[in-house]
């Protein structure tokens, strides 16, 4: 009769508001059904009472009939609460009228009129206790029916009419339907309550979680800004305080003239010079890395990929001309990114420079840029025809600081580290594919 699986599904998938609306609709449906059942149940009594010549009870049955219709009609007009009260009021009046005109005193009749009434009360009150009470009451009346039939002393008018068998049949049917409704309703109500409770708990949990995560976030943010300040301080110390004595060393070495003819001394000085140069390079690199974080202060804006590549080409003009490198764009000229221009260009700059530096000696370096844009992400693939990287060997170290591959390279192992750090700053990720002696492809993905 009721597709509970569907109901539960609907409730679990619906929000709280929807569930409440759904419950109301469910109650409305139940009430309508009960009214139809009520009409079915009372209909035979037109026949029974009219055969017995009891015209007042026929009138009462008619009134019931009308009130059931009115309830259904009111429900149709969405005044279902009014329908409930009308029904309760009407049935009460009916019972009173019957008692007055015919002198009904048996639990039979009371049952007959109060049965549906109780269901409405229950539906209105939503109390599990009341449901249990109503079921107990129904059972009591059923027992009473059989007791009265078995031990009846005074014959009832209905025996004379001969309609009692129909009545029993009717009542059994009635009882079965009521039981089903109760059963289903209890089950449904339990499911509804559970799902609402679950939803509420989930919502509460969500709220608590969100508040907590907000607290965490602000804490993390505070920590981060402190570390960022420290980092800035560190960067400042490096560029001023550490570089200062180093620049003196470099300076003095530059005017030192080895004229004592001692070959070893000259070697020592040359080595110190080399070390000082190297140290200075490291410090400069660290500074570049640290100041790259400052780029984040720039705003996102629409950047045309092709334009960005052209800008980088200009910055790399010397190296491109010197190596005879070709840069080929294989993507839509109108492809735009919403990003921080300087960082994007820094990524391209380092990747291009990398491709040129690690090119093979016998062919001109060729850099091919492919890009595609979907709803979710933008993918840029930068391929070269260079020496390639032995990924099996260097797999973990490609993007690490101070790692270079191959024997003779100009790089100091900072470029790819900077690239990855830049890509991550823009919320993207980078991966690498490479075949030795054929070339390398870097694939960058940004969220669209």
């Amino acid at each position: 009769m009721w597709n509970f699986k569907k109901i539960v599904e609907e409730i679990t998938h619906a929000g709280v508001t929807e569930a409440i609306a759904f419950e109301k609709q469910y109650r409305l449906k139940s009430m309508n059904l009960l009214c139809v059942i009520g009409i079915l149940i009372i209909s035979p009594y037109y026949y029974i009472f009219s055969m017995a010549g009891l015209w007042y009870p026929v009138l009462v049955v008619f009134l019931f009939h009308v009130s059931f219709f009115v309830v259904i009609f009111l429900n149709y007009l969405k005044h279902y609460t009014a329908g409930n009260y009308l029904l309760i009021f009407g049935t009460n009046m009916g019972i009173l009228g019957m008692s007055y005109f015919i002198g009904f005193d048996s639990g039979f009749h009371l049952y007959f009129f109060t049965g549906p009434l109780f269901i409405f009360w229950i539906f209105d009150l939503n109390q599990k206790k009341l449901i249990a009470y109503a079921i107990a009451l129904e059972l009591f009346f059923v027992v009473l029916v059989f007791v009265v039939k078995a031990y009846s002393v005074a014959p009832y008018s209905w025996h004379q009419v001969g309609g009692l068998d129909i009545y029993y049949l009717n009542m059994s049917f009635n009882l079965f339907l009521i039981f089903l409704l109760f059963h289903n309703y209890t089950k449904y109500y339990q499911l509804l309550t559970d799902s609402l409770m679950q939803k509420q708990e989930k919502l509460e949990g969500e709220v608590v979680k969100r508040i907590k995560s907000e607290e965490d976030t602000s804490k993390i943010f505070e920590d981060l800004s402190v570390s960022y300040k420290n980092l800035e301080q560190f960067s400042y110390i490096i560029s001023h305080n550490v570089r200062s004595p180093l620049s003196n060393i470099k300076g003095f070495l530059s005017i030192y003239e080895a004229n004592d003819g001692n070959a070893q001394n000259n070697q020592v000085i040359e080595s110190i010079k080399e070390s000082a140069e190297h140290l200075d390079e490291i410090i400069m690199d660290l500074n570049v890395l640290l100041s790259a974080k400052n780029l984040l202060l720039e705003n996102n804006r629409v950047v045309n990929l092709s334009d960005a590549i052209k800008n980088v080409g200009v910055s790399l003009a010397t190296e491109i001309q010197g190596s005879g490198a070709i840069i080929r764009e294989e993507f839509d000229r109108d492809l735009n990114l919403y990003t921080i221009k300087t960082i994007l260009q820094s990524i391209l700059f380092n990747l291009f420079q990398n491709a040129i530096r690690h090119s093979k000696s016998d062919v001109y370096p060729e850099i091919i840029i492919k890009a595609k844009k979907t709803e979710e992400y933008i993918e840029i693939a930068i391929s070269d025809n260079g020496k390639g990287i032995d990924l099996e060997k260097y797999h973990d170290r490609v993007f690490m600081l101070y790692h270079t591959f191959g024997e003779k390279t100009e790089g100091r192992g900072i470029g790819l580290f900077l690239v990855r750090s830049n890509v991550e700053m823009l919320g993207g990720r980078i991966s690498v594919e490479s075949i030795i002696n054929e070339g390398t492809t870097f694939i960058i993905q940004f969220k669209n």
Partner: protein
Amino acid sequence: MTTSARPMVFFVDDDPLSNKFNTMLIRKIHPDVEIKTFTKAEDALADLKQEKNQKPEVIFLDLNMPVMNGWDFMAEFKKIGLDIEVVVLTSSNDSSDKAKAEKNNQIKDYVVKPLTQNAFTSVVKKFFRSKEDE
């Protein structure tokens, strides 16, 4: 300006070793240039304020100094209203320092330490030329 035969440069740097190196370098490449070094920016200012003192053609200024740093010096120097070229000579290759120096129109150049013969020559070339023009 001054009628002194020998051109003069100032080095304002809190690091005496740096001043020593700069002096040695310039003695080597331009022995005719007069050099004055200051480890405190205040002293350099006081010297400049003395009217009888010979004014330098170029001031090499460090940025990161205690008490009065390079920027403080520039603010005070502006008040004196002397037409002297200032070149920042600093160990910092910090881009924000560079940007700040570029905005200051009294700072003619930004040189990252150590000073080299080429860098010095290219800086002083300008003032040698302007000397010849006079």
